[in-house]
């Protein structure tokens, strides 16, 4: 059975159909990339799955449960972790505290008023920081971390909720090319070690084709193609939406101009 099943998901903003009835699945242990040109509806789709937006229509099933329209905290408790395009971390805390507070949320210890957070789940938090390569930065305030490290920290924070599925919105956006592959290799290893599934959007095609097991292409709010990376790469329709026409057409257009 698939882990995540999306059917007929739709969302319109004032008459503009940003996501127009899209459907796909994610299998356990799979890394799936969603790509598409600007305005294809990737972000809206992601925000529908992450609970930041409520769909107009459609159905989302996760592990057999209907989670359509659930709010983010409920999704987190159900086992869906999330990272954002611009890394979202708790800026007033240290790296370790970031993980600790996420851990406390996962264990439903937030209403505890009397114990101190500092002594809670320290070892576990440090293990998670170690797993993303931030062990040395545990006591650093996050404002002192480089952006690539914030992306790693965000990953650790998401993992602290013991997710089964990770939604990653442009995991490598804003970091240098050299660090992208390292970050995605890390994600890859975590997927293997923890049996996670990952659904991610991405602009960097090297990242997409280097790490995704499957690629979903969106165009104008709809699903254009869904398949193995090599099939997507050679799909003429996919090329066309990325270039606004096939290369031949463009050649003709340019010839006509000249």
């Amino acid at each position, binding site marked *: 059975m698939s882990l995540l099943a999306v059917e007929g998901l739709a969302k319109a903003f004032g008459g503009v159909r940003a996501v127009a009835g899209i459907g796909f699945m994610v299998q356990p242990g799979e890394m799936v990339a969603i790509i598409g040109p600007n305005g294809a509806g990737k972000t809206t789709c992601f925000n529908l799955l*992450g*609970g*930041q937006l409520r769909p107009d229509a459609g159905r989302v099933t996760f592990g057999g449960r209907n989670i359509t329209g659930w*709010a*983010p*905290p409920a*999704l*987190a*408790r159900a086992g869906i*972790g*999330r990272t*954002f395009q611009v890394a*979202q*971390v*708790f*800026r*007033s*805390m240290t790296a370790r*505290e970031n993980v*600790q*507070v*996420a851990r*406390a*949320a*996962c264990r439903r*210890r*937030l*209403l*505890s*008023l*009397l*114990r*101190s*957070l*500092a002594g*809670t789940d320290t070892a576990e938090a440090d293990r998670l920081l170690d797993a993303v390569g931030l062990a040395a930065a545990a006591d650093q*305030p*996050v*404002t002192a971390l480089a952006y690539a490290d914030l992306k790693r920290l*965000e990953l650790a*924070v*998401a993992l*602290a*909720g013991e997710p089964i599925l990770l939604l990653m919105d442009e995991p490598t956006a804003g970091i240098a090319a050299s660090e992208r592959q390292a970050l995605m290799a890390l994600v890859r290893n975590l997927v293997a070690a923890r049996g996670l599934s990952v659904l991610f959007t991405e602009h960097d095609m090297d990242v997409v084709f280097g790490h995704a097991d499957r690629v979903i292409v969106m165009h104008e709010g709809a699903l254009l193609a869904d398949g193995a990376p090599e099939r997507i790469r050679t799909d003429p329709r996919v090329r066309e939406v990325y270039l606004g026409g096939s290369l031949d057409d463009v050649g003709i257009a340019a010839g006509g101009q000249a």
Partner: protein
Amino acid sequence: MSFFVAQLLTGLANAAALFLVAAGLSVIFGVTRVVNFAHGSFYMLGAYLAYSLVTRLGTGLAEFWLAVLLAGLAVGVIGMVVEIVLLRRLYRAPELMHLVATFAVVLIVQDVTLALWGPQDLLGPRPAALEGGIIVLGERVPVYDLVLIVLGPLVLGGLWLLLNRSRWGILVRAATEDREMVGALGIDQKWLFTSVFFLGAFLAGIGGAVQLPREPANLMMDLNIIAEAFVVVVIGGMGSIGGAYLAALIIALLHAFGIVILPEITLVLVFLVMAVVLVARPWGLLGRPEAITSAPAHGVGPEARWQGRWLVPTFAASLAALALLPLATDVYGLQVTTEVLIFALFAVSLQFIIGVGGMISFGHAAYLGLGAYGAALLVHHLDAPMELALVAAPIAAGVGALVFGWLCVRLSGVYLAMLTLAFAQITWSAAFQWYAFTGGDNGILGIWPSPWAADPVIYYYVTLLLSSAAIAALWRARFAPFGYALRAARDSELRAAAVGIDVRHTRWLAFALAGTAAGLGGGLYAFLKGSVFPDVLAIPVSVDGLVMLLLGGVNAVLGPLIGAAAVTGGRIALVAETELWRAVLGAVIVGMVLWFPDGIAGTVRRGFGRGRR
């Protein structure tokens, strides 16, 4: 039927001034994103200036309207000066700074008005031509009321023309939608902001001037109207002139009809209307949803780490010193220190909401007051002993905070600030108006501690024990998972929700917790003073709390203690020294906001940080 019509007409007439003030507030906010606390002061100045002008020019019809116009223009110019001198330098500062800075203007204007016109109420002569009344359906209605009823729609229409038919109006509307894009199209926003301030202040000045023949100019006009104007703007929708008119009508009619049933009921009605509107349309009746989502939490940097380590030793040392204080000072000194301790608890609880929670509360006095009144009413009506009253005080405030907080946590930024202020003003009005129960402005007297605690030294120790225990408990909560969850929601609401934190619930609980703590302070305050007056609930007390935070540093753990000592001590000293203590306090706030926005502790810490790096 005729009675109905008469109340309707009175309500419509009352709406005129309220609409003028709210419309100005709304236009200013729409373009500059500044909630102008001093807008009530502009209204008050309008009334006083009109009084002076009318008494000089005479009461002919033309002279009267000339006086109104001149008063409005003068206030408009004053508004421009405030914008150029103060606000222009603060547009990039957090909203909290806007509110506190404009409140400083309120304080200064109060003392200037007092100095120029004196403390007595001044009823302006009504223009002779507008004297008398006409009979409408058997009820006599003052002609002047009818004039005001017509004035509302006239101004609404005039504003509509100005905003829709002039290039300036087009720019104002464009800037209200998307300030940044207007800049990217080549419009210098500086003069636009200044001119908008002129218009807003002009409208408030006219509002005050036309109210003069109906209501004497007095020194309480400013805060009374601003709280109502906030309610109107929240209900009508920020930045919507039509919404301001509609909401002003609703509020004025609620008052007109409520007052004949039972004056207290109007407050409940106003609260209920706000509750319904905010639950159904958080952005107001005619507002736009996007207007309220743009309000980020108070900007904060990393929490100071050393305070965690040094907090306990510092606190213990201070407690030891305070425990020995009775050996070193007299009764007066002890009473002052007792008051400082109470306000320290008040400030720490406010910091829990503002600093840790990122919610700007402008009505924290409500919870101090609910605690004080909760204790005093129990003693007064049921002869309860001090011990029981001190248990009831935090409960009363906690329940109040649960009720108000339930609505407040639905909003953020300046909307939340205005709502908290409106709620505080509702509790103030209840205490002020409900003579039979609260004694109104005569207060409740004879609230003395139990015999064993009657000695000031003993009462000092009682206060020291309870305040420090409550402060320690709030600090504990701050560094417990709960406090971190609250801070997490402040740092990044998106991330907090995504890790499973229910942001709204967490904030609501924090609100209740802080309210409860402030309520304990209120109970202690009642027994310290031996009496309770509505003043304890009033806006200046809320603002004192904010000034304490600003002085001590919004996020510094020990900041509220420093701030409470400085403000309470400073105020007591100032009041003894000068008549113009409000103006001095206002000037101090302005200086602080402009030059030391990080507060005493923050400024010192920054110095430290630089030294170490």
